[in-house]
């Protein structure tokens, strides 16, 4: 058991680990629910989310997006984040799953 940490770890199915700020990670509804201390999931105790469906290359982009979203949360006319066309489809499925 541990206190909620400032950083959490997201793990892709092919083993890549991304340590990102909790405040950014919980922008994703799915990750927020995983990490909710009330839920008593293993993820909440270890501060580590293993995302079995998402490959590393996509998860990297997701993390980039989470920080991007956090940064622009209150600003207007936000520039669109660049998404490589080749992973757009995977990213769509991942983002639908993660609820971002």
């Amino acid at each position: 058991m541990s206190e909620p940490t400032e950083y959490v770890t997201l793990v892709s199915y092919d083993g890549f680990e991304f340590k990102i700020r909790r405040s950014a990670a919980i922008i994703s509804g799915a990750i927020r629910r995983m990490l909710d201390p009330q839920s008593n999931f293993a993820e909440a105790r270890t501060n580590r989310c293993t995302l079995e469906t998402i490959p590393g290359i996509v998860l990297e982009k997701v993390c980039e997006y989470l920080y991007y979203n956090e940064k622009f949360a209150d600003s207007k006319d936000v520039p669109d984040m660049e998404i490589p066309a080749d992973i757009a489809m995977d990213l769509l499925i991942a983002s639908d799953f993660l609820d971002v």
Partner: protein
Amino acid sequence: MENADDTIVIPNTEEDDSDAVPALKRRKLDKGKGKARVQSSDEDDDLPVKGKGTGKKGKGKGKAGKGKGKGKKKPRGSEDDSESEDADDFLARDMYKKGKKLPGQLENCEECRKRFTVTPYSKTGSDGGLLCAPCGKLLKGEEAKAKKKTQKPAVTGRRRRKVESEKLDGRIGVGAKSLVQLSIEKIARYAEDVEGFGDISDPLLRKLSHIFTKNRVLKPETLDLFLRNDNRKIEIHDAAYLETDNYDRVFMECPQMEDITFGNACQLKDQNLQYMLEKARHIKHLKLYAANLITTDMWNTYLTEHGPNLETLKLTWLNASFDDSTMEVLAKRCMQLTRLKLELCGKITDEGLKHLKDLPRLAHLSLHLTQPTDPEIIESIIAAHGARLQTLCLAHIPEATNSLLNTISSHCTRLSKLRLSSAENLTDEGIATMFNEWTGKNPPLSFIDMNSTRSVDYVMPEGPDEEAVGLASAGFIALMKHSGSALRKLNVSSCRHISMAAFSEVFGTGSTYPNLEDIDLSFCGEVDSYVMAGIFRSCPNLTRVIAFGCFRIEEVAVPKKAVLIGMPRAQDAIEQFGGVGMDMMGVDGGKEVTVEA
């Protein structure tokens, strides 16, 4: 730079040799076109000689001119002595000229004091002196930077248009777009290269279909992406690119299909409907817009055979088919029909309409008729289905009178969506009575559209004096009193007789409409900044306000979650406050909203 010598020479020509003038003139002309048409008599014999000869001569004279430029310094000394007032002026000009060295001459750089050779490309420094090549480059870099900085605000026009366009799409200005949205946009941009959507959820598929339609990339090549063997629903809002064969393909690939939407189905033909009849036996919901190549006979055949399975039928823009005989078939065969929408179907008359009474399960009815209608027939339909009706949309019913409203209020008890638009013979009193009578009888509605229900008499733009026509103050107050608590969507655009007092009463302090998400107030001239602020305060879940033509809205703080559309004039004021909107919504109470009346 090259013309500098010309300017130097001209003031001196009077004293110096007279042929300098024509020579110079000719030089200029040579540069311009090569044709000399100088009137001076001295050079007459030279004039016809064009090309190399004159060119050479010109150069020669040019040198002479430069010589004069140098020589000119001498008279300057003499003029210094003279006490004429022109002297200062001349001196100033002369000093200025002195600084300008000509290409090929040597000069000290203004910045680094180094000696360098002047070229036509030498830059002028901040004090008017010339700069050497390295210093000139530096200056150029700085200039480019400054230019970039000044250019930025210039693109706002285009950005603003994009912002407005996104607003119209219902996207809110603050914060980043969702990753789903970003990915979908990217996919739509590379639509041709997508191999397959894989296993994605239906709502996502629908979103993709929307954006493909919007970007006009839903073509025969991309259609396959949306076809999966187990698909039960397909939604294509702009099928204009699809050809006859493609429709057959849809029914062939997805025999389980239950729900079909084809917008702009302009190439859907009889043969497709025939094929659909054979292949897609499970269709329950059929929505076809502008399918004008299907004949009345085919409709009759289809409805006779497949009618009993249909639960939803929505057809719009059928100009030449679907007449009264089809209506008769529809009423006889479609016993399961719960939703019926017939909009802008030009062949339907009263004769066909009256059959609608016989549909036993109808709960959602939308009609937009083009032929003049007897309001009594519509009333009889409402009376027949009243207790079941949940949706009643009657667009463009100029013939309807208050007796229609009576019928609605006395028969409908489960209505949640009501549209009575362009009904110019309803009175304000009638509308108010309907809502008042409904209290306790029909639960609050969630959708009300009364757009353009007002008097349209161009002689009396203010409406008749004695009795208000259409939705005006009393009707609006009654409407909000009855339905305000559940109302999600309200459209009162062009109901311009609703008074300021009515708006203030409805959206005044103490009122809350927790469910209201979408309001259209366009062309309600009485709405001003004060009313707008009241609306934002009393509707905490508001996401969109449309206010085209409300010129009295000037400065208003838009809450973070909402967009205000259609206010080009007040744009700056709105954007300026946009960021603070959230804080103000957070504070409890009614007086903290900034109002600039």
